């Protein structure tokens, strides 16, 4: 608009900066957690029977004799290029996680692609028919379903659809050789469960976000101008609710991420969540670090996108004085 930097750009830049800062702090926490590991990192890799000489050699090889801060920088630099180092099993971490990452991405994106528009629509419907039967029914049932543990939902779904009705396989073990149709067929139950879990959260929060916009004086003004209720919600409230809805959706993707972990375990789905739980059981720290970093980066990324959407959708920032 002007030659001076637009407020949106500077706002967005500062949000990106904050996001990166968060990621940096998180990576620092994840990295330094290792130094609390009982026993040394090198002996953990080599196993119980390693000789002190072998341990020392390994420490030099891994650069463990260097100062802590330099090691962090090196680790961070490598992580940025997708190299997460060696797992305790000796294989590169990314070789372990890589293919599983794809599976998890497919599972999560299909779920999100259904859940996000559906929950926004339901949230709007609830806000529009506030206090009516449909709203009360959805409010109560979503309140109930956010209180149900993910694994309970998963097992009930499995019990009914796989064990009793035998419509779908109870195990979602997909492999590379399978055709796309077969893979999708096996993913139905995990996706259905994930949907049930995150829809409830998202509908509730979208409804709340719209209702808080609906409490603004300009909404009452629209009613005083005789606008029909549907238009009040869609034309007056919604444009102002985009930002809040985006944040709500991003925040709720946390439930998607933790949901993924539990549900991959229940349905034995070969994804990152499964890998992380296996690593946790084997205390394979480099793999855990990598998984945590991936999940954290994804979550920070989502929130960043939401922040930027709410900045861009704010007319006060979009059209400065």
């Amino acid at each position, binding site marked *: 608009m002007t030659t001076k930097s637009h407020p949106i750009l500077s706002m967005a830049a500062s949000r990106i900066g904050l996001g990166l800062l968060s990621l940096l702090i998180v990576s620092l926490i994840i990295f330094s957690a290792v130094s609390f590991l009982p026993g040394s990192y090198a002996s953990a890799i080599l196993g119980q029977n390693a000789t002190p000489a072998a341990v020392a050699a390994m420490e030099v090889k891994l650069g463990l004799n260097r100062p802590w801060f330099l090691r962090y920088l090196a680790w961070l630099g490598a992580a940025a290029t997708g190299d997460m180092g060696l797992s305790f099993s000796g294989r590169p971490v990314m070789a372990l996680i890589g293919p599983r990452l794809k599976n998890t991405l497919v599972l999560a994106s299909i779920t999100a692609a259904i859940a996000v528009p559906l929950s926004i629509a339901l949230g709007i419907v609830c806000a529009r028919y506030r206090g009516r039967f449909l709203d009360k029914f959805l409010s109560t049932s979503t309140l109930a379903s956010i209180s149900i543990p993910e694994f309970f939902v998963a097992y009930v779904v499995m019990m009914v659809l796989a064990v009793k009705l035998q419509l779908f396989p109870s195990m979602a073990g997909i492999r590379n050789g399978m055709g796309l149709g077969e893979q999708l067929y096996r993913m139905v139950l995990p996706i259905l469960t994930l949907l049930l879990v995150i829809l409830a959260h998202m509908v509730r929060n979208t409804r709340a976000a719209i209702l808080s916009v609906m409490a*603004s*004086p*300009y909404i*009452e*003004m*629209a*009613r*005083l*101008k*005789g*606008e*029909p209720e549907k*238009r009040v919600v869609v034309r*007056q409230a919604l*444009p*102002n609710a985009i930002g809040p809805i985006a944040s709500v959706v991003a925040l709720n993707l946390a439930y998607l991420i933790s949901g993924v972990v539990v549900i991959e375990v229940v349905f034995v789905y070969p994804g990152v969540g499964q890998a992380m739980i296996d690593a946790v059981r084997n205390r394979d720290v480099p793999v855990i670090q990598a998984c945590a970093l991936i999940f954290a980066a994804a979550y920070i990324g989502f929130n960043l996108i939401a922040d930027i959407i709410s900045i861009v959708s704010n*007319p*006060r920032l979009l*059209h400065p*004085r």
Partner: protein
Amino acid sequence: MTATPSAPVIDLVDLKIEAKSNDQWSKIVNGVSLSIRPGEVLGLVGESGAGKSTVGLAALGYFRPGAKVTGGEVRLLGQNILDIPEEERRKFRGTKVAYVAQSAQAAFNPAYRLMDQIIMVAVDRGGLTREAAQKRALDLFHALQLPDPRNFGKRYPHQVSGGQLQRAMVAMAMICNPALIIFDEPTTALDVTTQVEVLISIRKVIEDYRVAAIYITHDLAVVAQVAHRVAVLRYGEVVEEAPIAQIMERPTHPYTKSLWAVHEMPVGQGDRHGKGAPLLAVTGLGAHYGDFQVLTAIDLDVGRGETVALVGESGSGKSTLGRVIVGLKEVSSGQVVYEGKPLPGTIRRRSLEMLKQIQIIYQSADTALNPRQTVRKIIGRPLTLYQGLRGARREERVLELLKLVELNETHIDRTPGQLSGGQKQRIAIARALAADPRLIVCDEITSALDKVVQAEVLRMLMRLQERLGVSYLFITHDIEVVRAIADRVVVMQDGKIVEQGGKDQVLAQPRADYTRKLLDSVPDMAVGWLDGIVAARAA
């Protein structure tokens, strides 16, 4: 549906409305009957809680959540709109009857350009094409004397000033040429100099377009300029209704008469300045918020036992100056000298003894008193802090202070939520007095109060001053209040002092242009004041 020229636009017949608060229904409008003819402006006057807005909204067939009609009729253009379903009622709004809210800033949707919002109803339901609606909006912008009318509609609400936005809302209400407009305190949130401009604009469109209106306000002086007839509302009942001239000259109901309470207070003694060295002297003071200079080269004295009124509009820096003096805001140049010694800039560097001597009272007692403390604790705390009083001796002193502010021992166990607005402000005054101060900074302390209560509190403050010899720095925008209690007046604009002197001189023979403009903008309690202004401008 078609009304004959003399048939009323709206008839409220014995309207009764109840509202729910704390799980109980209480009557807020109790049998109000009003009737307005085409082209007539009815002023609806009353103080906070009188039910003015509820009546105004009822004229639109609208009731806030938690309110319900329990009786009566609202006959709009001959039809009782309470009989028909909400969906039908809705269709009257915006087209036949329109509404102008107190705060245009809050009532405009931030997401749309002004033009789009203003013509929305006309295009959707008013049967106008987009072009025709825009043409009409443009005419209204001209009539409302908005600057650069052609481009005005392209802006977003946050891009224009408060006074302009308020006029834009009038344009929005007028866009479908309604039979009736409800103005709900349309100038209350504005500064006086802006208020005049908006008042002139509103009156001009009402006359140009011959629209009937209900003008809701708490300010008799304002309503005297726009209304033909006035109904005075109290506790949800009309206590007096008469043509405006009659109300202004011969009010009959005691309540109506009480609206003159502050206006009729005796004008104080005048200049008592110059007895000995000043208690407080501000010299060459400047202050910043970031890069923005809020105060520039302020020089000001407050003498012992005198009242200095600090007058200005919002943004003039008058409250900031008060905050500097009590130590809440650091200065960037100059100093505050108290009893001949410079005061440290911030609270942390001032001793308890210094803090005790300068007290502050706020505009809103609702936020100035902790809602979870009893009166005993609120007043007792400074006694413990400054004088170490405890137990029975403290209790005794709290009771004395309560008596001093004309309350009694029955109030001591109450929390602020159980007190009226005036009582709360008295508690705040008692808390300040508990410190036994030499100077009290009073920041707009009567502006949130009703007229009668305002007058009572002002009188009490003057009695206290005589008795205790305390000085007041009285920050206010209200010239009536200044006239009643000030010894000297300091006028501020844009962070600078534009004029100061004895009350009689500043109010009667102002030297600065701004002071003159400020004084001229305050509506007189008389019909025809605005005509005088408009005539003077035309000349």
